C-alpha cells in the first residue's frame, strides 16, 4: 500500500465530501494508534483480544483431512474466537479505536450477522451505544445473530431496499454516517470501503496469519506451501495472507462463492454468485476502486451465495491488486460443493464450520492434492448461525450427505 491508500490502481476514497473529514480523522488515528502504537493502543487491544476474545486461537492438524488429501492440513481456528468468527479481531479493534478517538456511538452494517454480533459484543464489552443495519433478507435468514445483537443491547435496523442483503445495508449505514459523522464511528466489517479501512481492517485481521506463522514454525519448523481462505469482502483472507505475502514460497488462495452459476445476467441485474475477484470488473463501490459485479452501465448486481457472509458484489482492493499482480490465486466454489464440504468437516473433524468457511474446504476437496506438502486453511468461523440454512438447503438440493432429521418426526408425548 502506498501512503495514499492505493494498492496498485485499486483502493482510494470515494465518499461524499461530508464524510471526508471523518475519513481524514480516522486515517490519522489509524496512523497513530494502529501503526505507531501511540498511547499503547495496540497493547491495549491485544489484551482485550486475549481476555475477552480468546486469542491466540490454536492451529490444529486436521488428521482425517490430512490423510484424505495426502498432505499436512493445518487449520487456523478462528471459529474459536469469541462470537464464533474472525470478525471480532477487527470489530474490537475499531470499537476500541473509536473510544480512543472520543467517538460516542457506533454503527455498522452486517450481512451474515457475524460482523454485526462481533460489533455489538465489542460495544457491550466496552460500553458503547450501537446500531446495526442489516438487510431484511439477511435478518430473516440469520435470525440467531439478530437475537444476539439485540441481546447485547444494540438496535438492529432492517433495510427494506433492493434484495435486502449486505450491499443495501452498507449503503444505508453510509447514510446514517452522513448524518452523524461528527460523533459516530462506522465500523466496516471487511477489508473494503475507503482508505484507511482496507489497510486498517487488514492490520487488525493480520493477527490470524501472524499467529499461524509463529505456530507453524513452533509445530513443524517451516512455512506452509499454501494458505487457503474464503473471501467475501476478504478480511479473513487478507488477515491470513498478509504475513505471508512477502514469503514467495507460499502460495495464496482466495476462495470465493461460486453460487449456483458463474454467469451473470445483465438484464435482470442478478449475478447468481459472488465471485468478484474471478469474474468481476473494475469499478467503484462503497468508497473504493476495486473489482465488482456490475452490468455494462455500471449498476451494481445483486450477488448471490448460499452463505450470507460471502454474498457481496465487491471485494477488498488489496485482494484485487494481489490477483492482478499474480501473487494471489482466486478460485470459486459453488453452493453445492460448499454444502458438501460443510458436512464433511462436521463429520470427519468434529468442527461445524460457517458456510463461508466451508467454501475454503470445498476448494481443498477439489485441489487438496495439488496444493503442496503443507496447507494452512483458515476456519474463519463456526456454523451455529447456519444450521437452519444448511438443513433446508441440503434437503432442497437432495445432497447425499447422510443426514436426516427424522429424530424430530415424533411429537412430544
Amino acid at each position: 500500500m502506498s501512503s495514499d491508500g492505493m494498492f496498485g490502481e485499486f483502493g482510494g476514497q470515494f465518499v461524499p465530501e461530508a464524510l471526508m473529514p471523518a475519513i481524514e480523522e480516522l486515517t490519522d488515528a489509524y496512523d497513530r494508534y494502529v501503526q505507531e502504537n501511540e498511547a499503547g493502543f495496540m497493547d491495549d487491544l491485544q489484551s482485550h483480544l486475549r481476555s475477552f476474545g480468546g486469542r491466540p486461537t490454536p492451529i490444529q492438524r486436521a488428521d482425517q483431512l490430512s490423510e484424505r488429501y495426502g498432505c499436512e492440513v493445518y487449520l487456523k481456528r478462528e471459529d474459536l474466537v469469541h462470537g464464533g468468527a474472525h470478525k471480532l479481531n477487527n470489530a474490537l479493534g475499531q470499537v476500541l479505536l473509536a473510544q480512543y478517538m472520543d467517538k460516542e456511538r457506533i454503527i455498522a452494517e452486517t450481512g451474515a450477522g457475524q460482523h454485526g454480533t462481533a460489533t455489538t459484543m465489542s460495544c457491550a464489552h466496552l460500553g458503547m451505544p450501537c446500531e446495526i443495519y442489516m438487510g431484511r433478507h439477511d435478518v430473516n435468514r440469520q435470525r440467531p445473530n439478530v437475537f444476539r445483537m439485540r441481546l447485547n443491547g444494540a438496535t438492529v435496523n432492517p433495510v427494506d431496499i433492493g434484495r435486502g442483503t449486505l450491499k443495501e445495508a452498507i449503503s444505508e449505514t453510509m447514510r446514517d454516517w452522513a448524518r452523524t459523522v461528527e460523533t459516530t464511528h462506522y465500523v466496516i466489517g471487511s477489508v473494503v470501503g475507503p482508505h484507511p479501512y482496507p489497510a486498517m481492517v487488514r492490520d487488525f485481521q493480520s493477527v490470524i496469519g501472524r499467529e499461524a506463522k509463529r505456530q507453524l514454525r513452533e509445530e513443524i519448523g517451516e512455512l506452509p506451501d499454501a494458505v487457503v481462505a474464503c473471501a467475501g469482502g476478504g478480511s479473513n483472507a487478507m488477515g491470513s495472507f498478509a504475513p505471508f505475502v512477502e514469503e514467495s514460497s507460499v502460495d495464496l488462495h482466495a476462495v470465493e462463492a461460486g453460487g449456483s452459476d458463474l454467469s451473470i445476467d445483465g438484464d435482470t441485474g442478478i449475478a447468481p454468485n459472488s465471485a468478484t475477484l474471478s469474474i468481476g470488473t473494475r469499478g467503484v463501490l462503497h468508497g473504493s476502486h476495486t473489482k465488482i459485479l456490475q452490468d455494462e452501465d455500471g449498476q451494481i448486481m445483486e450477488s448471490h451465495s448460499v452463505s450470507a457472509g460471502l454474498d457481496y458484489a465487491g471485494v477488498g482492493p488489496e485482494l484485487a491488486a494481489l490477483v492482478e499482480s499474480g501473487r494471489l490465486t482466486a478460485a470459486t466454489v459453488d453452493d453445492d460443493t460448499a454444502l458438501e464440504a460443510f458436512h464433511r468437516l462436521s463429520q470427519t473433524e468434529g468442527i461445524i464450520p460457517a458456510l463461508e468457511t466451508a467454501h475454503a474446504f470445498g476448494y481443498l476437496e477439489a485441489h487438496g492434492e495439488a496444493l503442496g506438502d503443507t496447507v494452512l486453511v483458515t476456519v474463519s468461523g463456526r456454523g451455529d448461525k447456519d444450521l437452519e440454512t444448511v438443513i433446508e438447503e441440503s434437503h432442497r438440493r437432495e445432497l447425499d450427505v447422510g443426514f436426516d432429521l427424522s429424530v424430530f418426526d415424533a411429537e412430544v408425548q
Partner: protein
Amino acid sequence: MTDPIAAAFIDNPAFIPYLAAGDPGPFDEPPSADDAVAQTSAYIDALVAGGADIVELGLPHSEPIADGPTIQQASVRALEAGMTPDRFFELVDDLPADLPIVAMTYYNMVYRYGGSPGVDEFIEAAAAAGVDGIIVPDLPVEESDPLCAAARDAGVHIIFIAAPTTTDERLAAVMQRCSGYLYVQARLGTTGSQTDVSDQTRSSLGRVRSFETNFERDPLPKAVGFGVSSGEQAADIVAAGADGVIVGSALIDEITGAGTDRARAERQLEALATELAAGTERGAARRQSGPERT
C-alpha cells in the same frame, strides 16, 4: 456565447430543481423506457414554467449512498423503468438548448460508461448531449483530478459540494477545482426535505466568502441544497447570501404524492416550483434592502 450556468446566476439568484431522470412517478407496472423519459421531459417543462433557472438531472445509480429515501426511491423507479446512461444523454439532447443542465450521478456510472474503465467517454457524451455541469457526490477532491481535467477540455463544469464538516484546508482544495457553482450542503445527512434550514447555512456561506476574500479567487456562485422544501426557506437562504437554491426531495415528494395521476404531479410540481422561485426572488429583495449580507 456566455456560459449558460454563469448566465443563470447573473441577474438574480438561481432556483435549481433536481429530478431523477427517467422516474415516471409511482406505478403498478413499470412503463416503457420511452414513456418514462417523456414523462421526465414533461416534469422539466413544469419546472421551467414554474421558474427553474438550471435543472439538475440525476442519472440513477443502484447505490445512491449520498441520497435519502425520497431520491433513492425515485432512482429505483427510474431503473425499473429502464433508465440507462444512453437514454439519459438522449433526454438531455432533446431538451431546449438554452436550459442549463447539470447531471448528477455516482462515480461508478462515470467510470464505467462506454465500455472501458475511465472518465473520458462519459465526459465526451455529456458534452455532446449538452450537459453543462456534472456533480459526482461520491467523488471527493482527492480522487477528482482525472475527471476535472477531462471536463475542462470538454468545457463541462465539475461542481463540488462543500459540507458543514468540510475543513478550511479541504475547502481550499474544493474551491481550487470547483467550477460552475459551489454546491453548499445546508446540513449533515443525505438529501431529503426538512423543515429547518439550520444556521449552518449562514456560517457555511460566510466561510466560503471569507475564503474567496483571503485567497482572491474569482467568486463562484454558491447554491445551497439538502433539505430545502418551501418558498420561505428559499427566501431565508438567499437572504443569508446564497446565489442559488437547490431543491430535490421536496419536488419528488410532490410527484410521489400524486400517485399514478401524472397530470396532477405536473400541476403540483409547477406550483411548488413557482413558490420556490418566488421565495428565491423575495430573498434577493430582502438581501438588497437589509444588513444581512455582512
